[in-house]
Every structure is written in structure tokens, then in C-alpha cells.
């Protein structure tokens, strides 16, 4: 797979998860206890054998760079290729509609030109999945495709808003790309992951230079007949995070044994920064049920249906239910937390009661309580 390089868009904006991502980015937001959201996309790339990844940085990139370091945990600390930082183009502007802003690539066009790879894999950082692209890349090469769009066939009729639908013929060639919501249930939708020939990408960037703030998908849709665009299906677990509700529900998904098996226990692992924390220590008073607990925690209180990140301290008598507690929080004795998303490094003082509800989890920003 050394003939493929990747561009990972770490600057997905969206609604900033009610302030959770204000000073970071959705890409570096803590997820599932010990991970950051970008770990899923990045691990999928390196597990497919890709060893050159360019990361388009978000406006606030301190936390993302802190997490990635030299890319060692993803095998990207290399002489040939490795991790490249591609500064994002329009700092501060975020839009719901743009997935892959062409100006971000145009600004970093040297990254494309100095490589000799045949293909470029492009993905974003707000999805939870574990996908090995090896078969998709083989399909792409076999079809001699210019572009292969990865799609998924919806399982449920709900949640179709804003999806980009693909219309394919029998040979899996994409004839039409439509942004409008489709009435039909079984229409495949684009999951914002694509393989494109490096030369084709370079030509598109060059040709659309005056329209560089548009989404890369626009020139593809406009030239659908001239380009050889194919679709490749992904059938595993994939969820996109737009809102706090998504963030909450997708975390809670991990309490499901089957979803954990699919995401974490296959032959391809999700890699993340290793912190060398000690194991988690349970005290005599600890009562923990149906929860995911990371390393380095000290638990004396009650925890139920919750996700606990690294190095969280939970004192005796504290009650945590249906909540997500990020790293290095301290939950003092006698507190009650229900449907709370607790940002990292927050201390909840003794006796506090914080409650949200399932449709509207309460987001507690860093050091707010």
C-alpha cells in the first residue's frame, strides 16, 4: 500500500459540541475512555498499510499535535513518508456543508507534488469506525478508477439529513451524486472517505483554483461523466458525530459487547497515544456496573452505565450514572452525576448534583464546577 498516501481533514467544525471542542477540535475530542476521535480514521489508514499521512490542522491544534507527537503510536515516525502537518487554510471559519475544502489542499499542494504515490486516500476525523482499505484500494486499481467513493447503505430510514447520495450502475460506477435527501431508503450514501488518483486530485485543485473554497465533492459531481468514479461499499459499524447527542449516544454504544468486538478486537486495532498509566485500582467501597473504565483511575464510588477516561478519581459515595467522564477529572464524595458529559481536568466538589437527560446531556466545560 506504499503507493497510497493519505490526507486526513482534522478541521471538521460543526456545532463545536456545546463548547467541548471550543479550545480543541472534534478530531482531538476524547472518545470511548482512552481514545481521541481522530484515532479511528488514522488507525484505519495505517492498518491499511499507509505510511504517509498529511493532517489538515484545525484552528486550535495544540491538543491534536500533543496527541499525535511524532506519530510513533501509529508507526508514522518514519524516514520515508510519515506524518505531515498541513496547516488548515481558513482559520476560524467553519461550515456544516464543507467536508473537504479544496483551499486546504491547495495551500499544501507541495505535499501532493513531492510524493510519487499513485493514490490519495481522503477522510475526516468525526467518525467512529474501523475499516481496512486494502480491498477498496485493490478495487480502485482493478477498475482503473480515477476516484472511488466509499459508501454505506442505510439500515434505518431515519437520520438522512444532509447526506450525499450516490447513484450507481451494476458495475458500481457512480452516475450521479446528489446532495438532496432521497426519499428512497436503500440509496447508498457517501461516508466522506474517498480514494483519488494523485494526478487527478492535482488537476482538479489546479482547474478549480478560483473556486477554492468549495468542497472537493463539487467538482467530482460536476465532472461525473468525464471522470471514472466508482463506489465501494463499507458494511461495518460506522457512526458520524455532529452533535452532543451523537457524541453521547456513540460513546454509550461502546457498552454493547458486539460493537466493542467490531471496533476494538479485530485483527486491526485502534491505535492511540500510550500514556503509561498504572492500572485502575478499585477500593473496598467501589460499585461499578455496565461501564467502560480506562487505566489509571482510582474508584471508590458508584458508577453505572458510564464511560470513564484515564486517571479519573472517584471518591466514596459519589454516584455517576449514564455519564461520560473525561481524563483527569476528580469526582468528590457524595456527588450525583446523571447524563453528564464532563470535560477533562474538571473537579466536582463534594455534594454537587448535576443532571441532564438522555436527549440533552449536560455538558460541563473544563474546570467549570
Amino acid at each position, binding site marked *: 500500500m506504499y503507493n497510497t498516501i493519505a490526507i486526513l481533514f482534522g478541521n471538521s467544525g460543526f456545532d463545536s459540541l456545546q463548547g467541548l471542542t471550543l479550545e480543541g477540535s472534534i478530531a482531538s475530542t476524547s472518545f470511548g475512555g*482512552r481514545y481521541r476521535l481522530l484515532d479511528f480514521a488514522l488507525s484505519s489508514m495505517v492498518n491499511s498499510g499507509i505510511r504517509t499521512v498529511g493532517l489538515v490542522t484545525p484552528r486550535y491544534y495544540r491538543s491534536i499535535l500533543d496527541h499525535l507527537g511524532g506519530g510513533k503510536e501509529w508507526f508514522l515516525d518514519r524516514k520515508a513518508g510519515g506524518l505531515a502537518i498541513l496547516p488548515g487554510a481558513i482559520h476560524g471559519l467553519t461550515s456544516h456543508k464543507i467536508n473537504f475544502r479544496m483551499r486546504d489542499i491547495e495551500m499544501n499542494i507541495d505535499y501532493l507534488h513531492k510524493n510519487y504515490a499513485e493514490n490519495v486516500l481522503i477522510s475526516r476525523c468525526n467518525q467512529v469506525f474501523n475499516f481496512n482499505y486494502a480491498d477498496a484500494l485493490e478495487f480502485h486499481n482493478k477498475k482503473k478508477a480515477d476516484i472511488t467513493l466509499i459508501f454505506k447503505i442505510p439500515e434505518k430510514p431515519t437520520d438522512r439529513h444532509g447526506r450525499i447520495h450516490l447513484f450507481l450502475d451494476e458495475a458500481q460506477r457512480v452516475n450521479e451524486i446528489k446532495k438532496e435527501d432521497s426519499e428512497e431508503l436503500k440509496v447508498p450514501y457517501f461516508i466522506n472517505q474517498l480514494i483519488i488518483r494523485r494526478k487527478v486530485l492535482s488537476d482538479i485543485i489546479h482547474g478549480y483554483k478560483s473556486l477554492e473554497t468549495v468542497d472537493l465533492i463539487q467538482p467530482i459531481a460536476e465532472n461525473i461523466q468525464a471522470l471514472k468514479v466508482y463506489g465501494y461499499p463499507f458494511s461495518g459499524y460506522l457512526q458520524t458525530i455532529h452533535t452532543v447527542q451523537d457524541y453521547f449516544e456513540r460513546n454509550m454504544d461502546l457498552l454493547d*459487547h458486539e460493537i466493542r468486538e467490531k471496533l476494538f478486537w479485530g485483527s486491526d486495532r485502534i491505535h492511540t497515544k500510550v500514556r503509561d498509566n498504572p492500572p485502575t485500582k478499585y477500593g473496598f467501597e467501589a460499585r461499578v456496573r455496565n461501564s467502560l473504565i480506562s*487505566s489509571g483511575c482510582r474508584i471508590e464510588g458508584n458508577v453505572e452505565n458510564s464511560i470513564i477516561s484515564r486517571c479519573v478519581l472517584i471518591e466514596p459515595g459519589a454516584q455517576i450514572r449514564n455519564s461520560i467522564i473525561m481524563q483527569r477529572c476528580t469526582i468528590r464524595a457524595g456527588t450525583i452525576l446523571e447524563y453528564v458529559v464532563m470535560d477533562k481536568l474538571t473537579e466536582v466538589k463534594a455534594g454537587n448534583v448535576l443532571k441532564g437527560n438522555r436527549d440533552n446531556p449536560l455538558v460541563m466545560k473544563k474546570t467549570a464546577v
Partner: protein
Amino acid sequence: MHKQKCIAMLLAGGQGSRLGPLTRNIAKPAVSFSGKYRIIDFSLSNCANSDINTVGVLTQYKPFLLNSYIAQGSAWDLDAPGGGVHILPPYVGENEGSWYKGTADAVSQNIEFVDSYNPAYVLIISGDHIYKMNYNKMLEFHKQKRAEITVSTLTVPWEEASRFGVMTCDDNAKIIRFAEKPAVPESNLASMGVYIFNWPMLKQALLEDSKDPQSDHDFGKNILPRQVKQGKRVFAYNFQGYWKDVGTIESYYQANMECLNMESSFDIFDARHNIYSNEDLLPPHYVGPTARIENSIVCNGCNVLGEVTNSILAQGVFVGEGVCIRDSILLPYAKVYDQTSVLKSIVGERAEIKERCLVGAEPGTGSEQEGITVIEDHHLIPKGSVIEAGQNIYRIR
């Protein structure tokens, strides 16, 4: 190669036969400890935390897992320019080669390796001790005393003194007598097996020792007593803190259990002297709806559905529904299936105990090793088995 001020030679070649089933397939330094660590992590982390970045690891017994675990030493930040971790198995030279005949012989056979760094000091440490130590403080002491050899010591209870190398010092901490495992100890100042030597002096001593047919080529038995007798400047450095030799099933079990009670051990949460390890990449552990975990240590990747009390679960352990784990140590990826009880036992790596077993049942008379049951790694215990306390269960092959 770069000249290094002080390099470490880590003795990791011992078989550790007193650990029974635990070291049947792997070297003692590679045995899992306190859930996420392996025993050698403590010595390697001490080196890293003492800015000693050149370490020769002397291996010979079943070294595969140990070698792959240590790799380039990057897990301990020891992959430093001009230094690094070097695995040193016995090798054949132009004349002959042989197995390491003792701890001193192991270093003796690698004189060329040490010379290539041309260090002023050589730190000799062992891969089977559990402790947090800053070797730099000892080195300062060594320089301050203008010592030729410094032995790190701790004061042990008199009744245990005969298990150690014990020494008698003058008022200036200079050692005047050294006796290895004496029947009647005249001091309770015990050697921890941590030494600093001036390299030219050590080289001389090793060459002398290698020519002595009577010698066992052992640091404690031969090198140190002889140097003390010859009147060399040998000093005792008094180490304050937790130190444990985990050479037997009983001491291994005890040292693990002491991690549950941080007052009797060191604080594994103390970030100022972190213990690094080369851990597998696993998701956080899951605690099921019917689980109950009390006073225990649990690592990443575990799946706990039953009850766990006063126990240590290493990474990737599975505890099924209705299971009762008490006073036990489950090593990496051990699996205990539904309705089984495991009491005061050490379950080896990737061992499986099937449904409705009882491991560590009330012992018969005269049970061994304080009633601790040990199951070899990869062993499979079939459904409904009852295993009496204090037994060592080996895999049949």
C-alpha cells in the same frame, strides 16, 4: 560508539526455577507483575528515570518473549542516541564460547561490549527485583566516598538475613566483611544485588575471577567477598524504600498483593517516578451489569462479568458470569468461564479455566507454598475440575 559515563548491565539470564509453572516457558524478568507490568519494567524504568540510557541485558534462559518485549527499549525511552538497550546472549568468539556460568561470568564474557562504551562506572542490576530507585543518588555517594565498589543495601529483619548477602561496615560505611547467605549472619545489612563498580577495577576483578577454577563466577559469592578481603574501597549505600526480590511463588504473590495496599508497597500512582512498560494496545476494560469489583487492580482490555475481590487482573483477562475470583492474580489474557471459583491462585498467561471449576479448594494436610495454587500459562482446565490449594499445575504436552 559514544563514551558513556555510566552504563548498566542488567542480569536477566536466571531461570527462576523457584517460580515453578510461571517460568517454565519464559524468563523470570518477563513474568507479568501487578497487572500491567513485567518484572524487568522496574529495573529498566529505574535506568530511564536515572538518566542511564545504555543498558546491556544479559539473557540466556528462554529469552524470546523477553527479547521481543524489550525490543529497542523505546517503551522505556531508552532508545537514545549513542546508547540504547542491547540484548547480550552468550556468543561464540574466535577461540570458543560458552553459556554464562554465573552472574560475573556473564559480564566477563561481555567485556568487549562494556569497553566499547569505555565507561567510568558500571552499574550491575538484576532483572527480577521490584523497587523504585534513583541510581544517580547512589552514584553520587560512590563518587563522594571515592569508592571502587558501592553495594546498595537495606536493613532486613534478622531472621531473614541469612537469605541475603550480608555485610559488616565500619563507621564510615566502608564494608569490612561480606558474607553471601551466611548460616549465622553477623549483620542484618543486606545486599540488594545492585552494585556500582569503577570499570577498570571491575574488569581486573573479572579477569582474575575467570581464571579461578574454584569460583562459581558469582558477584555475591565470589567477586565481592574477594574484593573486600583484598582491602578495596567497598562501601555500603543505604537505600530507603520498598524493595522486593520475587524469587519464589510466595514472595511473588506477596509482592503483587502488596500493590493493592499502597502503604505497604510503593505508590504505583506516583507519577514522579513512573514505571514504563511495553503494553499491548487494548481498549478500556468493561465491567458488566452483574459484576462486582472490590479492592482490586484491573487492566485494559479486561471483560469482567463476575465478582472480583482482593485480586489483580492483568490486561485482556475475561471473568465470566457467576465467577468468584478472590485473593488471586490473573496474568494477561487468562480466561475464567461462568460459575467457576478461583481462590488464592496465580493463573498463568492465556490459561483457561472452563465452567464450574473450583481452583484453590481447601487444602489437604501439608499443603505447599502457603496454599497458593499456580497454573501454568496456556493450560486449559476442563469443565467441573476441582484443584486443591497449594498445587502447581503444569501443562501436559
